[in-house]
């Protein structure tokens, strides 16, 4: 096996100009944390795509969560990095009955421990997290928990990638694909990219894994090879986790979803299926869809599509900072602008 030093030496010999996109937020953070961009020659550019689920949560969805958080008899359970996602100058961090959890299963315990309250879990995440949210719903059903629901905001990756590929300004030569998503969905799930003439490498997250994935992808671009390569074979199979996929299919059905910065993308969301509708917070609390406008001047949509960089935005590091984020890319620590702010700002 090549060492990372060898890999970067060989990459330095490649003189073609190319643009790579990492789709996953954890890749964005890892690339910044390990200083990988500083090891690449200037002709090879890596940009970040719409792969941070927190970042792409729309203001409309946050508005729904805030409406629930305002109710005295409700506890909203959520992953920590959702707390700061902005909506009209407000966010969940301002409400005392919002409880941070790490393991979604803890939301059931919360419901059992607080029988006089309604516990609402914010269902967020891509294919990696969706089966976990689904299994929480199945557990709640088995245990007959009456005071527990999920506010569904889960999304799936392929429609957003298709949107990027289909964009006429698309300059992306290849994708570094999310290893954790692929662990659930399987490698074949991403074959649509190569079928459209594109290419991608499914990657792990440690420095050697990311470096070797970049190397594989750079070689494929240089050789104009169109394929999906699985460079995370210890975790990702062709078919993925069959049980997890089945659970997802049972509990969710595909719907259109609004992505912050990108707008409504057809068939990119997961809503709770009829069979488990009693666990749907939207239905239980009669939450209406409200159109909430996104902040003006924000170019996150363009950044997520790979057309612009954070430094191209007039809000970046002036009005928009990690403690006061305006756009989706600054919201989560995994967002492109947040990573730029933390690791590259002068």
């Amino acid at each position: 096996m090549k060492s990372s030093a060898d890999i970067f030496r060989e990459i330095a010999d490649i003189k073609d100009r190319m643009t790579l996109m990492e789709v996953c937020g954890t890749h964005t953070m890892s690339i910044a944390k390990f200083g990988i961009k500083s090891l690449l020659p200037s002709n090879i550019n890596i940009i970040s795509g719409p792969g941070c689920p927190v970042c792409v949560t729309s203001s409309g969805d946050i508005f729904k969560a805030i409406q629930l958080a305002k109710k005295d008899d409700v506890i909203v359970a959520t992953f920590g990095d959702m707390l700061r996602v902005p909506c009209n100058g407000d966010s969940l961090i301002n409400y005392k009955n919002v409880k941070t959890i790490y393991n979604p299963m803890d939301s059931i315990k919360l419901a059992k421990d607080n029988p006089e309250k309604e516990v609402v879990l914010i269902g967020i995440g891509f294919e990696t997290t969706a089966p976990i949210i689904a299994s929480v719903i199945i557990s709640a059903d088995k245990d007959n928990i009456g005071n527990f629901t999920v506010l569904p905001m889960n999304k799936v990756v392929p429609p957003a990638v298709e949107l990027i590929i289909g964009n006429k300004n698309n300059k992306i030569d290849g994708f570094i694909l999310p290893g954790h998503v692929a662990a659930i969905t399987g490698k074949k799930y991403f074959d649509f990219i190569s079928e459209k003439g594109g290419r991608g490498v499914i990657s792990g997250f440690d420095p050697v894994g990311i470096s070797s994935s970049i190397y594989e992808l750079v070689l494929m671009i240089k050789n104009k090879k169109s394929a999906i390569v699985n460079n995370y074979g210890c975790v990702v199979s062709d078919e993925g986790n069959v049980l997890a996929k089945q659970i997802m299919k049972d509990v969710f059905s595909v719907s259109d979803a609004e992505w912050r910065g990108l707008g409504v993308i057809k068939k990119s969301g997961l809503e709770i299926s009829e069979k488990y509708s009693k666990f749907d917070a939207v239905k239980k609390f009669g939450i209406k869809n409200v159109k909430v406008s996104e902040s003006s001047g924000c170019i996150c949509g363009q950044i997520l599509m790979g057309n612009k960089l954070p430094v191209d935005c007039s809000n970046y590091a002036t009005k928009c900072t990690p403690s006061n984020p305006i756009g989706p890319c600054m919201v989560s620590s995994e967002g492109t602008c947040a990573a730029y702010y933390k690791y590259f700002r002068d």
Partner: protein
Amino acid sequence: MLVDKIGLNVGSGGRQMQDFIKEVILKKLGNNILNVLDDSAVITMEKGRIAMTSDSYVVSPAFFKGGDIGRLCICGTVNDLATSGAKAKYISLSFIIEEGTSLADIEKIVDSVSITAKEAGVMIVTGDTKVVEKGRCDLMYINTTGIGVLDEGVSISTHNAVEKDVVMVTGPIGDHEASLVIYRKLIDLNIDIKSDVAPLNLKIEELIGQTKGVHAIKDPTRGGLSGSLNEIADNSNCEIEIFEDKVPFSNGVKALCDIVGFDPFYLASEGRYVIVGSSDIEPVVKKVFGNGASVIGRVNSNKKRGVVMHTELGGLRKLGVMDGIQLPRIC
């Protein structure tokens, strides 16, 4: 006669307050200056410069693995004094107690203050007690002021780092905040991390008694190692260059950060120092603080890059100041 729960009357200036001061405070913390019980303590000082610091402690929970708010308030105060090279001498202690707090809890905290003050060689010379209605404070807050004396010629400041200085840490970084994250059950993880809270003032006295090469000392509390390094780089108008593989972290901190997505360079310690000085301080710092102490980087002349880190992979990464707070990530 003391009751089991602290009532509002303990802070009211009447008999209950007198009883509390006599039976809890003086019994555990008494000395010839405090025992006078006048509204101000009278201290005889030698000639020369004094250092003074103030801090408030609002840690939640008040009891955590490796310490409690009592130990923390003494350590924080003497450690702050030692950053200027001062010898910590006297501390004032103001308690703000939540009504209904058990007397046993308060006694435990005052015991901790007493033990830690002895460990650090400082006297509690004055203080105050207030009690606020239930819900207006979380068990107890403590405010302190510390006074220390400076020997002639000692000049240690975050403004004093110069080119070619070595940058050292005295041990693994981040255990205090990591232990609180675990202890608060914010995340239900079974990782064994103990707070590093400890008084380090006597070690610093020993260090500067043995070398004149120490230029800057900073305790990486809030804002973590990154915050401390940036403050030194800013104040001394220099660049600090560190090496990721040289920075010590305990396995517990590494595990927590890996799982939750925290950056360990931003986690607080309460018993560690960043020490910057000429290259000959290395063996002395190691002798005083033990082998956990290590050189993590160096100071360069003004290149305006702030703090940069060579990553384990060989890349270069900027280590900026934290903006906002760290939150556990979804994945």
